[in-house]
């Protein structure tokens, strides 16, 4: 399917767990730097529309992507650059979509985080929150009907998205059909500017699992180890036929809603709380404390990531933009049924 984004030779340290931890960290780091690159291109006026970063959520997202296999289905949301890379999304897909290259999978028709390759199991989100979950359900039901087994479907949502009717209908639908769905809720304390107190009234969103009759688990979204374990288990459970799995992660969005937003409304107390830790820093400290990686390795990984990204951006910036005169202005695959509405 997709090509690997990391140089595999660089891995292979102490234990299998250490291996995946390092791999996950490096992908999370890559996604962080990628996001930052988009942010800087945005500030330079080189990106049209919004830029949405996963800052503070990378290790959660990457853990999901790492737990999935080729053949699984993944419908990431706006803060999932890390999970995408781990699932195998080519770096170029992200860059081409943000920069509006017609060579990207969305061919300049849709932008930024609205990208994917459905036939390779990576479903491109529409903006309407909650709307992707039932689409993943459909893919999973289709596989059941086709007799394909052993694959799972995963998707992500923020705590704000849990207030949509779509979320509810889809989780209940997955529960009724006992589909191998993994739904990761990133409770990052805010939906745009709206704090949790204005979004829901339960103690924890995990309390919802019981009400749907699905299994659930809570993870500390700032802790890569906890995420790899919690999310990994959820994916295993789903794969083992235990039905839908709800993972609720606690963390804090360490950026604005989008790059246009300074997030001035974020509570200082939250920033100083354990929720406000930078998940990459936490991982770096752990790797150093366990002697899995020293400052040189970290620096090398960072510069390797920067180089990859700069290269991709440089390549895409040379690609010509879309040509409206060559664009096929039809939304139907059956050309014969397309309306040639005459315009003067």
């Amino acid at each position, binding site marked *: 399917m997709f090509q690997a984004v990391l140089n595999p030779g660089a891995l292979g340290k102490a234990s299998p767990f250490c291996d995946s931890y390092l791999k996950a960290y490096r992908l999370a780091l890559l996604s962080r730097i990628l996001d930052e690159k988009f942010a800087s291109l945005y500030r330079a006026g080189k990106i049209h529309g919004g830029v949405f970063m996963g800052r503070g959520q990378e290790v959660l997202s990457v853990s999901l992507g790492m737990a999935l296999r080729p053949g699984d289905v993944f419908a990431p949301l706006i803060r999932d650059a890390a999970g995408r890379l781990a699932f195998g999304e080519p770096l170029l897909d992200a860059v081409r979509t943000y920069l509006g290259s017609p060579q990207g999978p969305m061919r300049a028709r849709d932008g930024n985080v609205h990208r994917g390759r459905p036939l390779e199991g990576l479903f491109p989100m529409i903006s309407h929150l909650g709307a992707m979950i039932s689409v993943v359900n459909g893919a999973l039901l289709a596989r059941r009907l086709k007799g394909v087994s052993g694959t799972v479907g995963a998707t992500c949502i923020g705590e704000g998205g849990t207030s949509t009717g*779509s979320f509810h209908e889809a989780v209940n639908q997955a529960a009724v059909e006992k589909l191998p769905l993994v739904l990761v809720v990133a409770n990052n304390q805010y939906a745009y500017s709206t704090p949790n107190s204005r979004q829901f009234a339960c103690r924890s969103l995990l309390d919802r699992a019981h009400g749907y009759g699905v299994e659930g688990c809570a993870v500390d979204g700032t802790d890569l180890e906890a995420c790899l374990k919690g999310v990994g288990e959820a994916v295993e459970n789903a794969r083992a036929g235990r039905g839908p799995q709800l993972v609720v992660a606690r963390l804090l969005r360490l950026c604005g809603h989008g790059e246009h937003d300074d997030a001035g409304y974020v509570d200082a107390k939250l920033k100083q709380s354990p929720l406000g830790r930078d998940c990459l820093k936490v991982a770096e400290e752990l790797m150093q404390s366990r002697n899995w990686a020293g400052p040189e390795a970290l620096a090398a990984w960072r510069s390797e990531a920067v180089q990859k990204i700069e290269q991709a951006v440089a390549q895409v910036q040379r690609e010509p933009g879309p040509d409206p005169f060559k664009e096929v202005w039809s939304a139907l695959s059956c050309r014969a049924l397309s309306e040639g509405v005459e315009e003067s």
Partner: protein
Amino acid sequence: MSITYLEAIREAQARALAEDPRVFIYGQDVGAFGGAFKATKNLAKTFPGRVIDAPVSEDAMVGLGVGAAIEGMRPIIEMQFADFSTAGFNQIVNQAATLYWRTNVPCPITIRLPCGGTSGSGPFHSQSMETIYAHYPGLVVLTPATVEDAYSMLLEAVAIDDPVIFCEHKLLYYHLKAEKLPTEALPVGKARISREGRDMTIVAYSAMVHEALAAAEELAGEGFQVEVVDLRSVKPLDTDTVMASVARTGRLLCVGESWPWGGVTAEVIARVVSEGFGLLDAPPRRLNAKDTPVPYHPSLWAAHRPTARSIAGAARNLLRM
């Protein structure tokens, strides 16, 4: 043998299920019960596991259909009434309708909407939603008026690689009958001349075709030869057939059961006048339902929708111009 419009819909689904393993049906009460209108009667038994009861979750029903379509299936999603498709509206117009355009991956999903007014059904079990869906790019909107079309167009809907909104008219379900199922059919996208005439053209679709035909019959008694065009599909809309008819008759009356603002009738007239302005000998006219919700009481309902009588009245006025 005689077969109803509803039975034709059932037979088309049975055939689609039998011939194509990718087809499945998903909707409320469609399984063992056979659906609120019995459009899936016995299908769950004949095709075990492929006719699936859904929770009361229209949004998730459509979303599931899209996901299955991505995986290569050909889902048929039954809405219990067209009116309830508003609850699945977002997934229809923003998810299903945009998928191919965004990703180059087709979305072969058929959404069956039991449409249209019947006596005593009231504002929430009577709506015609073809206008709403036809406005959106990325959807094919079919409105069969005959038993034969119900059958062949539903089969074609399932075969089409794009999302199809299949508007079945509930008033035709039980009463409209044909001798047998068709073996060949006009392709989707082509309108049909249901009755020939040289004095004026009435364009109609779905149940209104029958009101228009009755009006034409009435006017025949007065010496007028009225041509009736059955659009069959409102998107794409077969402007050529309509224009050719208007070119012969010089007069156009357009009839629709949905609300007046911006419906099929406005679209047909706008196309005819901008492309065939010189063809008209008199102003084009239209007749729609009144601009209120559909009333419950039979006598209000009968006054709310166009009928053979009101169509004949409008046609007479136009013939006199």
